[in-house]
């Protein structure tokens, strides 16, 4: 809660025309709140009126000044954090294939290491080329004859 002394200082500045927009916001918040000191309560209608006018005005033509970044910063940070949390969680739970070795045969998953190694070896053999195959593929027939 803002101290009464601070409000008195701000009030003095307000009537001298030297308060900033932010300081005026503090005054409006204080005087439209429920804990207004009794000796200052006499100023309440002034700030209540201005507060209401600002609200009316912002529906007609929104003034950007005090729709400040600050109001959006934390919700934005929270939203980004939640989004990241959501993605992480999604990947954790959907990525059932986690760590370790496994093999999928006909849609079924086997996590036996030896079986996985066997299958992997087999798969590598299927796609590997022998020396002869490489020679056959890379060197044209007529050149081969020359080499021989």
């Amino acid at each position: 809660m803002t101290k009464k002394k601070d409000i008195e200082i701000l009030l003095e500045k307000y009537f001298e025309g030297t308060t900033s927009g932010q300081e005026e916001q503090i005054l409006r918040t204080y005087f439209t709140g429920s804990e207004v000191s009794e000796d200052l309560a006499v100023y309440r209608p002034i700030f209540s009126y201005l507060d209401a006018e600002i609200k009316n005005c912002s529906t007609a033509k929104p003034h950007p000044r005090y729709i400040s970044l600050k109001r959006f910063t934390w919700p934005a940070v929270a939203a980004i954090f939640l989004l990241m949390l959501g993605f992480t969680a999604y990947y954790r739970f959907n990525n059932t294939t986690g760590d370790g070795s496994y093999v999928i045969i006909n849609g079924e998953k086997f996590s036996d290491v030896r079986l996985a190694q066997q299958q992997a070896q087999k798969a590598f053999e299927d796609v590997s080329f022998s020396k002869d195959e490489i020679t056959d593929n890379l060197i044209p027939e007529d050149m081969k004859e020359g080499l021989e």
Partner: protein
Amino acid sequence: MLCFGETFVLSIEMEIKEFKIKVLPLRGKFYGLARKIVEDSDNAEDVTQEVMMKLWEMRHELDKCHNIEAFAMTMIRNAAIDMLRTEKTNLPLLEESIGHQTLSDDHLHDVKSEVELIKRIIEMLPEIQRNTIRMKDVEGFENEEIAEITGCNILAVRSNLSRARKKVRDVYFQIIKERNKK
């Protein structure tokens, strides 16, 4: 998010910039005409400032106006003649008359709600003070920006603002005091 806020602020900055390009250069002419009519430099300055504030208030409609200068000069002429009339008929300016006489005349005492009372008091202020309160307290411009828009000295803005706020406070206190006496 940062971008959103900045874009939002930027739009008003753009409006100020546009106003400064379109209207502010004409200020000298406005003052010249006002000075010719009212023959007093302070009053001419007040008339000019008043019209500058009005023009700012209607900035969105100015685009449709073919000749801003001619339009604004008419406003200056009217405002200056109004000021002369007020002086010639020897009516005290609202600023001075907002004391006892107007209080009873305008039935401010009958206004029940205190917030409504504040509204009425502000409505009774001289135009220049009322507009300054509006720009600073409602629309949220800083004194520097008001000075920039109206092309007048920042001290004059502060002084008008202070006079306006004090007037509202004093008249309001006076009414409350009289009410309590009854």
